[in-house]
């Protein structure tokens, strides 16, 4: 089955998931992001690459943070940005997802940045565009259900590469609600593709998906064991709904076993970096002392995130 993200020349034309993306494609995106980091430090934070192009933010699931970073990235590329908050579901409007997409294509959209509560929605849109001779319109997945958040995965990879230089000798621990996390899945695919020898997931059994080892990870239920000698610790956000779904008894008990505190962090390597996709729940998955400490690189992640998104949009818009 052809990779729906690559065109006939093997070039990236949609970014839907990191799974199945060849390592050179991923590395190319990270390399392209590097000069974009520099743009942020200039007086005029713009380059004319996407001038005249229209980027439509199609957010079927609310997220001011992610939408804003995509908007900033697109504007720094001199693109026109249109924000569409479709809310819960397009079907409440009576219009199907694909009908909405067709209408927007007719309005000369060049790039759709899509966030949806259902896994696979961006794939559906990309397949529809490919099948209807509209392959000049590109799709960037800004997060679909539990499945994938590829730009987050890429900025996480960029951050790790920035501080650690190489992947081939790293131990990375991903801690928390992996079951519901598209961030975790994307990062796992990216790390394994780039040759990270040890990728660990750490969490209670209720928050780890069935057969998670098949993704290429080692499973830990004891966090002290899980972060021991780690080079990178990635903390995932715990959402309140998990308590209601009989997955966890309380935030307090979760913090006791799986919260990142200074004493647990001390078990990792001395030069460990601490990452978090944000927004953080202080005192639930991460202690403030760690979040504000010198091992945390959470704010640089945000800066890198804009550069990575600029790189992604530049690459796909040119293919």
């Amino acid at each position, binding site marked *: 089955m052809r990779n729906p993200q690559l065109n006939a020349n093997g070039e990236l034309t949609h970014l839907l998931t990191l799974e199945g993306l060849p390592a050179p494609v991923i590395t190319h995106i990270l390399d*392209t992001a*590097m*000069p974009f980091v*520099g743009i942020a430090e200039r007086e*005029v934070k713009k380059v*004319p690459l996407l001038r005249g192009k229209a980027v439509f933010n199609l957010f079927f699931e609310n997220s001011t943070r992610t939408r804003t970073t995509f908007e900033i990235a697109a504007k720094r590329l001199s693109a026109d940005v249109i924000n569409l908050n479709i809310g819960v579901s397009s079907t409440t409007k009576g219009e199907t997802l694909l009908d909405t997409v067709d209408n927007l294509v007719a309005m000369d959209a060049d790039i759709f940045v899509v966030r949806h509560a259902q896994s696979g929605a961006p794939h559906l849109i990309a397949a529809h565009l490919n099948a209807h001779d509209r392959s000049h319109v590109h799709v960037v997945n800004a997060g679909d259900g539990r499945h994938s958040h590829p730009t987050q995965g890429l900025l996480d990879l960029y951050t790790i590469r920035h501080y650690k230089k190489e992947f081939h000798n790293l131990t990375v621990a991903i801690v928390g609600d992996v079951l519901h996390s598209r961030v975790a899945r994307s990062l796992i695919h990216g790390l394994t593709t780039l040759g990270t020898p040890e990728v660990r997931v750490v969490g209670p059994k209720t928050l780890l998906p069935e057969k998670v080892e098949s993704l290429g990870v080692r499973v830990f239920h004891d966090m002290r064991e899980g972060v021991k000698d780690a080079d990178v610790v990635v903390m995932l956000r715990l959402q309140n709904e998990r308590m209601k779904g009989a997955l966890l008894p309380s935030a307090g008990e979760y913090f006791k076993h799986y919260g990142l505190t200074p004493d647990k962090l001390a078990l990792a390597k001395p030069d460990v970096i601490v990452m978090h996709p944000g927004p953080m729940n202080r005192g639930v998955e991460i202690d403030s002392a760690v979040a504000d400490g010198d091992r945390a690189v959470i704010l640089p992640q945000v800066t890198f995130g804009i550069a990575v998104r600029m790189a992604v949009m*530049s*690459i796909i818009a*040119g293919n």
Partner: protein
Amino acid sequence: MSPTTPMPLASQIPDAESVLAALAERMRPAVAFDAAFVGIYSGGAWIADRLAKMIPGEHPVGYIDVSFYRDDFARSGLKSGAKRSELPFDVEGATIILVDDVLYTGRSVRAAVNELFDYGRPARIELAVLVDRGGRELPVEATYCGARLAVARNLSLVLARDGEHLKFGVESAAEA
């Protein structure tokens, strides 16, 4: 051009080091004492480094990557290998000598000038090139030029660096 057109003989390819010497000779009496040399990657960057050593004065050296300002993005996409531009001086009010290895259509220079203006408003920009091969498609001219050379349309003049030694080579031009 037909594929059987012969490549120029090795004796016809200019010696980069002597051309560089000629360029520096022309620049020495004319450039401002505090002019910044900004080289366009990669050839221009190497030359800017050499010129800064060869020409007396306080000459900060910067490098500029024009990948994001090219005019052929829609046709050819983003080329890989984009580097970070580094301008370790204040562009606002500066005298800048833009440095490139080969001046041809003039499009790279246009892109570099546009990019410089996104950093600030320079007082003046001059252009120094090792070789002017003609074939301009935009109204751009070099202020300082090492040598003028006619090169067939289907060929590319490429600068290479071997240690500190610069040399020219010729390749078939990549299809646009």
